[in-house]
């Protein structure tokens, strides 16, 4: 096969995959969340700047500036924060409501509350300065 034909075939396959909606599935593992007592829970998160995220599936997300997140518990990967007055989701082949998992002032991944699963980012993303009091 000539190089040009090979390129054309690759483009067609990529186009077909796009049209077919073949985004990879969000990878996740089951986790158990330990629910935090409100009195003992850590301080809320308040994003001072937007935080853009690139997901492993190729989709991107933006945590908006001024968004407010409350701690609802803990998984082994960090503290779990639920958004207040907004909804946040991650996307691959399917869409999943997602809460933030934070450790050492960095976003480690997401807790998927409907599935009780954890989906990790490929690398932790530092939170904007001032997000944690």
């Amino acid at each position, binding site marked *: 096969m000539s190089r040009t034909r090979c390129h054309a075939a690759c483009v067609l396959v990529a186009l*077909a995959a796009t*049209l*077919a*909606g073949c985004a990879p599935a969000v990878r996740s593992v089951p986790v158990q969340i330990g629910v935090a007592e409100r009195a003992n829970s850590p301080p809320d998160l308040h994003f001072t700047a937007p935080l853009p995220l690139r997901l492993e599936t190729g989709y991107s997300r933006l945590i908006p500036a001024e968004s407010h997140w409350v701690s609802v518990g803990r998984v082994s990967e960090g503290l779990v924060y639920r958004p207040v*007055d*907004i*909804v946040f*989701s991650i*996307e691959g*082949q*399917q*869409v*999943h*409501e997602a809460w933030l998992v934070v450790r050492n002032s960095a976003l480690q991944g997401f807790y*998927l*509350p*409907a*599935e009780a699963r954890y989906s990790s980012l490929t690398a932790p993303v530092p939170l904007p300065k001032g997000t944690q009091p």
Partner: protein
Amino acid sequence: MRRTVLKFAAIAAITILAAGCASGVKYQDMASSMPSLKGGEGRIYFFRSASMFGAAVQPEIRLNNDVVGTSKPGGFFYVDRPAGNYVAASSTETEKTASFTLAENEVKYLRTSPSFGLLVGRVVIELESAEKAKAELGSLSYTGTVTAAK
């Protein structure tokens, strides 16, 4: 003769497109008469903007495998369900689902929108913020029939 045929074709196309759009009561006219939530339940709105793009694709919407309505351009409907975990799906060429959790007295908004498919169109479901959803709901028409929790 050719102009007459073109006119008929245009009228037919407009009629078909108009027939595919939701035409029920507008949200703004029924919002005040919607029943309040029962204890232990939350409300889930499904809505679709009035775009003509992909208007012919109007799949059923399922919630935890129960059919709860149809995705129609310019339409919305809602269901009340007990607090818990849910998966919403549309029955098109490829199934794109949205999983979410619903708390007591919580209101969730799910946007359905057409997208390109390999053979035919498909409808994707996404979680939408209350702010954006409310901005669009006012002009949309009610297409639902089922509101009670099963």
